[in-house]
C-alpha cells in the first residue's frame, strides 16, 4: 500500500475526530440548556412575577426588562450609527479622516464589555445623575452595540454599485436627495441585519449592566427615568450563585432557555436575510 495514501487517510481521520469533538461539545451545551430549561417552562413561569427571591413564580418582569434595555439601546443607537455612516461615505472625502473613523469604530469593538459598564456609569450614572437605572443601561448598551450597527450599515452602503450613485448624480440630486432616493432604500437590509445583531448582542450582555442598570428583586416596570429594571441576564447571574438551591437553579435554566431562544431567533433572522441577499447577488 502507498504510505502517502495512508498518511492522507490518517490525517483526514484526525481532522474529522477534532471537528467531531468540537461539534459534540457545542451540541452538549445546547441540549443541556434545553433539557434543563424545558421543565421550568410553563404559562405561570412566563407570565408571573418572580417570588421568594426567584425560586418561585416566574420571569415576566425579567423578560420585559431585557426587552426594554435591548430595544432602547437599538432605538438610541440606530440614528447615530446611520448618520455617522452616511457622513463618512457621502461627505467625508479625505482618506486619513476616513481611516481614523474606521480605527475608532474598530477599537470600540475591541473594548471589553465590563469597561462600558465602568465608564458608562461614570458618565450616564454620575454626570447625568441617572444613577443605577434603566436609562443608564440603555445608553451604555447603545454605545456598546454602535460598532455592530456601524459595520453592518457601512458594508451595505459600500456595496451599492457605483452606477446607482452615478444615475442619481446625473439627475442632479443633491446629497440629501441622493441619500433619501438611492442610498437609504438600497442599504435597508444592512440597517435591518445590523440592528438585529445589535439587539442580540445587547440581549446577551450581562457584565455592562449588572451594576449599572439592574436590581434583583422587588422590581416591576420602571415608573420613572431613574429606576432600575430586572433582566433575564442578571436574574440568571444571581440564581446561578445559589447553586445549592435546586429550585432556584431550575429557574435559572428556564430563564436561560428563554434568553437563548430570543438571541437565536434574532441571529437566525439575520442569517436568513443575509443568505437571501447573497443569492440575489449571485443571480
Amino acid at each position, binding site marked *: 500500500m502507498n504510505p502517502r495514501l495512508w498518511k492522507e487517510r490518517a490525517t483526514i481521520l484526525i481532522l474529522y475526530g477534532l*471537528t467531531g469533538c468540537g461539534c459534540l*461539545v457545542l451540541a452538549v451545551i445546547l441540549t443541556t440548556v434545553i433539557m434543563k430549561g424545558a421543565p421550568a417552562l410553563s404559562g405561570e413561569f412566563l407570565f408571573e412575577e418572580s417570588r421568594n427571591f426567584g425560586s418561585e413564580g416566574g420571569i415576566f418582569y425579567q423578560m420585559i426588562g431585557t426587552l426594554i434595555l435591548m430595544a432602547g439601546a437599538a432605538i438610541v443607537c440606530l440614528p447615530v450609527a446611520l448618520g455617522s455612516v452616511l457622513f463618512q461615505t457621502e461627505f467625508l472625502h*479625505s482618506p486619513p479622516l476616513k481611516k481614523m473613523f474606521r480605527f*475608532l469604530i474598530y477599537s470600540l*469593538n475591541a473594548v471589553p464589555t465590563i469597561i462600558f459598564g465602568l465608564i458608562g*456609569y*461614570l458618565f450616564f450614572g454620575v454626570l447625568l445623575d441617572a444613577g443605577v437605572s434603566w436609562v443608564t443601561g440603555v445608553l451604555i448598551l447603545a454605545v456598546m452595540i454602535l460598532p455592530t450597527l456601524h459595520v453592518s450599515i457601512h458594508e451595505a452602503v459600500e456595496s451599492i454599485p457605483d452606477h446607482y450613485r452615478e444615475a442619481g448624480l446625473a439627475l442632479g440630486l443633491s446629497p440629501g436627495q441622493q441619500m433619501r432616493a438611492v442610498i437609504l432604500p438600497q442599504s435597508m437590509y444592512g440597517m435591518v441585519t445590523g440592528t438585529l445583531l445589535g439587539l442580540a448582542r445587547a440581549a446577551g450582555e450581562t*457584565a455592562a449592566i449588572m451594576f449599572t442598570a439592574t436590581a434583583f428583586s422587588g422590581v416591576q416596570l420602571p415608573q420613572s427615568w431613574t429606576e432600575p429594571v430586572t433582566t433575564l441576564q442578571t436574574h440568571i447571574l444571581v440564581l446561578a450563585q445559589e447553586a445549592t438551591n435546586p429550585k432556584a437553579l431550575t429557574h435559572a435554566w428556564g430563564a436561560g432557555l428563554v434568553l437563548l431562544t430570543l438571541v437565536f431567533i434574532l441571529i437566525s433572522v439575520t442569517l436568513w436575510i443575509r443568505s437571501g441577499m447573497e443569492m440575489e447577488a449571485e443571480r
Partner: protein
Amino acid sequence: MNKQPLFPERGPAFWLTGLAAAISAGTIGLLFVSLVVESVPVFKSEGVSFLWGTDWFAGEVYGALPMIYGSLMVTGLAVVMVLPFALGSAILTSEFLSGRVRLVVKAAMELLAGVPGILYGLMGIALLAVWVRDLFGLIDGNTLFTAGLLLAVMILPTVMTLAEDALRAVPGETRDTALSLGLTRMETVMQVVVPQALPGLAGAVFLGLGRAMGETIAVMLVIGGIDRIPQPWFDLFASGQNIPSKIGREAAEALGFDLQWSALIALGLVLFVMVMTLTTAGHFLLRKAR
C-alpha cells in the same frame, strides 16, 4: 484633476449626519480619554507598584499583579485548548466539505458565537466546576483551569469561522497547481494552503484571544475569585482572579469616586491595553492575509 473640496455641500443632510458622526466619534474619544484620566489617581498614589504589587486590600493597598497573571494564564490556557479543535474543524470545513454542508456549519457557528456569556457561566458553575472538582479530586472546582476550559469552549466558534475565512481566502489556483504537481489533497492543504493562510490563521487566533481576555461574566462565576498568584505559580488547579472578574465583583461596592473606583478603572485600562494589542495584531494579520 481638480482637487475636491473637503465638504462639497452643506445642506441639512450634511449637518444632520455630521452631528451623528460627531456624537459617535466624541463618545468613543471620551471613553478612551476618561479611561486614562480616571485611572490617574491610583497611579499617583501607588506608582508603578500598582502593576507589580501582589496585594489588593480595598482602602489600603492596590496591587494588580495577581489579576494580570490570572488574565494571562486563563487566556493562554484557553488558546492552547481551543487551537487543535478550531484549526482542525476549519481545515476540514474549508477544504473537504461540500459547499452546502459548509454553509450549514458556518451558520451554526455564527449562532453559537452568539450564545450569551451568562449561559456559559451558568453551565460552568452548575456543571463544569463540579466535574473538574470530582475528576481531579479537588476541594473547590472553581479554578484557573475551569475558567480556561470554559473560555476555550466559548471562543471555539469565533476562532473557527475566522480561521475558515482565512483558508478560503487562499485562491483556488494555488490548490489546482499543487494538485497538478501530484500532491495529495492533504499534502496540498498542509504544505501549500495552510502556510499561505498563516497570517490569517494567526489573526483569527489573536481576535479569539482578545475576546477571551475581555470576557467577564462566565469567568467570574468559575474562577474562584481569590486575588493571589497560586503557589507554585504554574498550579492551574488553584483559585485565582482575572481582571474582568475583579472589576465585576468590586464595581457594585465601589460605585463612586474614591480610590477604589479609580483602581478598578486603572485595571480596566490595563485590560484594554492588553486586549487592544491582541485585536490590533489580529486585524493587522487578517488584512495582510487578504
